[in-house]
């Protein structure tokens, strides 16, 4: 196959993405985790670019890297005890995570190795498909359930759904659920451990309990 | 209001708590007994015909003869001078309180006087300054810490017998 730009960069990005993903898991420092997550998600965006899905890639950058992560870091900054709070993972958590993650990985590996396009040849994966113009329109339609690239005018809609043409709605929903999980996680990290009195904003309200203050810098 | 009227008013109200009235000085003053200072201050501030709302300054003066050429009158003592003013009546008053240099004559025991910081908020910092530089303990002060010198400074610089330390935190003093 020789030196193919797409495959070289695909592998590079893939290694970066998974490497930083592992770094997220094995790092104890919450801010570094966030940084690795940025890198990992950025690499995934790079993968999307390579696949010719510019729109998804930009979406990935904007929503995940730009939006969610900034929010996440922001939440961590506002709520962390110290600047570099270490997250200790207990053995029980490791076990649960290992089980869940391991089974997911197994499913993924199985799915990946059994996909016919992947096993057949490197060409299909490395070169962007040229039968569909890489614009955002088919993607948007696919999100709504209409796969333009697989559209067969002879079939009616019911049979097309039966033929595995349900569009990207399910993956999109899964991604959305993932987002919800992220937000719930952030809220969990930031949950209150303080009295529920409103913060003193008025000029003459008495200051809070001085014992809560941390050390002077 | 003239000084004599003010002095009369205060003397009438407080009797022997007003130790002396000196009217012929450039800035005439009344001298009060130290324990009564807070009470008198409150009266001076709140009495409608006096209305000394404004505390200009608290000054401590240490009278201790260290130089044989400079004679001082009377016993070694610390005088606290309160300069009061009234914006409403545009009159001024000097109130003095005389304290011993050391409480009960024991060296190192700071003399004590009630704080007037409850009467005028200005007094808060001024009393801290007097405490810091002159070594007078103000009873009932909410936050009596050194203000100009560092917290770990030794001695009270404006006392006449104060000697600059030879060294402070590794810095040569003299």
């Amino acid at each position: 196959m020789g030196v193919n730009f797409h495959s070289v960069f695909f592998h590079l990005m893939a290694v970066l993405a998974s490497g930083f993903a592992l770094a997220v898991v094995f790092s104890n420092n919450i801010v570094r985790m966030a940084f690795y997550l940025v890198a990992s998600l950025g690499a995934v965006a790079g993968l999307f670019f390579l696949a010719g899905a510019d729109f998804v890639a930009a979406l990935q950058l904007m929503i995940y890297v730009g939006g969610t992560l900034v929010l996440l870091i922001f939440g961590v900054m506002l709520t962390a005890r110290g600047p570099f709070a270490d997250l200790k993972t207990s053995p029980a958590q490791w076990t649960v995570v290992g089980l869940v993650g391991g089974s997911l990985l197994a499913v993924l590996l199985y799915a990946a190795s059994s996909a016919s396009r992947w096993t057949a040849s490197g060409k299909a994966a490395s070169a962007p498909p040229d039968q569909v113009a890489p614009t955002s329109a088919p993607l948007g339609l696919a999100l709504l359930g209409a796969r333009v690239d697989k559209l067969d005018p002879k079939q009616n809609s019911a049979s097309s759904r039966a033929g595995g043409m349900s569009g990207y709605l399910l993956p999109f929903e899964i991604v959305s659920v993932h987002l919800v999980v992220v937000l719930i996680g952030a809220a969990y990290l930031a949950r209150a451990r303080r009295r529920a009195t409103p913060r003193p904003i008025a000029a003459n309200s008495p200051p809070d309990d001085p014992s809560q203050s941390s050390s002077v810098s | 209001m003239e000084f004599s009227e003010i002095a009369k008013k205060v003397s009438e109200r407080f009797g022997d708590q007003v130790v002396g009235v000196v009217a012929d000085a450039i800035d005439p003053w009344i001298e009060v007994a130290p324990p009564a200072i807070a009470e008198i201050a409150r009266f001076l501030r709140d009495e409608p015909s006096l209305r000394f709302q404004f505390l200009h300054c608290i000054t401590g003066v240490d009278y201790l003869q260290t130089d044989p050429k400079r004679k001082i009158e009377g016993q070694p003592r610390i005088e606290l001078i309160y300069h009061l003013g009234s914006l409403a009546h545009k009159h001024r008053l000097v109130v003095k309180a005389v304290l011993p240099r050391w409480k009960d004559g024991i060296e190192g025991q700071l003399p004590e006087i009630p704080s007037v910081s409850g009467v005028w908020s200005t007094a808060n910092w001024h009393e801290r300054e007097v405490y810091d530089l002159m070594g007078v303990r103000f009873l009932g002060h909410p936050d009596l810490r050194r203000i100009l010198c560092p917290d770990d400074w030794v001695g009270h610089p404006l006392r006449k017998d104060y000697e600059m330390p030879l060294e402070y935190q590794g810095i040569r003093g003299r």
Partner: protein
Amino acid sequence: MAVEGVDPELAEFDVRTDEILVNMGPQHPSTHGVLRVVLRTDGEIVLDATPHIGYLHRCAEKIGENVSARQWIPYTDRMDYLAGMNMNLGWALCVEKLLKLEAPEKARHLRVIIVELNRIASHLVAAGTYGLDLGSFTPFMYAFREREKIYDLFELVCGARLTYSYITIGGAMADFPAGWLQRCERFLTEFEPVIDELHAVLTDNAIFIRRTAGIGVLPPEVAIDYGCTGPVLRGSGVDWDLRRDGDPWYTRMYDGYEFHVIAQTGGRYPIERPGHPVPAAAVLGDCWHRYYVRMLECVESMRLIRQGIEKYSRAPGGIGEPIKLTQKLPKGEVYLETEAPKGQMGFMIVSDGAAIPWRARARSSSFCNLSVLSELCRGCLIADVPAVLGSLDIVLGEIDR
């Protein structure tokens, strides 16, 4: 983890934020010297601001007990080093009051001119650095450009630009050089439009108004309670100026002069700028008013200088002889306050009859003005702390003495 008596559900929903103690200063761009303020903050909200002072402390009062009265004048320069002339005047008048020595007529007008010029210079620094505190660099340059011109004038009369030791006990060190008055008048004519420039870049600027109006409101009772003086007190609407209401030894210097005390009484300022009303958002006693009082005082000072120039040129005689360095002082205690640009600067001298005072005391206006900071900053935002601090216009050389 809920606190007693509180519904635990409620406590869980409040997002936990940490209080942080931050150190503002002593090396901070907007503390006007070496002031350290410890802020206790919750996010951007300041719960408590505690000033820590003393970084410039050199016990000038102790020095005053070791040098003669006239020798202490250079030390007064270094108190409010932005208004050295006013500091000189305060101490000189205080000793003169003890000596019962009145400076000649000509020296009186000379002092008015010099002192009011220095007041303008000081207010220019206040306005310029206030712009800087609020993130606007340009007014600072405008103000300092004009201040330099004033310093040029001072340099002509005494050779120094910052610490003058010019006004002295018994008069002044030297008379105005030839042509100085014309230069001074030329400066005044040049300076007049600059005030409008400053008004344009600061006073009437919408962002400036938003940053200062209604911020750090100091009610008059609190201002008096804390001993605030000068523009800080007048900014709260208290009509009080020692040039009019002070000790006769001081006010007689201004005999025959016409000027307004700049304080908003009855809802209006004594001088007004046509077409530029006080912004609706401004509350009496807020940062905007404190700043505005200074700007208007510049105008009044110009008026005083013009009158002074006129009176000085007509006054007969000399400007008086300074007392001898070792002149013995009469026994007695004298306290005198003067209206310095930053507030009422009080000097006290206790004399036992020697040439060297038994006790020299300086009552600093900035010292009292600063003590109100924690009151003003409670509950404001971090960004408001420089705004409030700048509007108090403190000088650490005077606070720490």
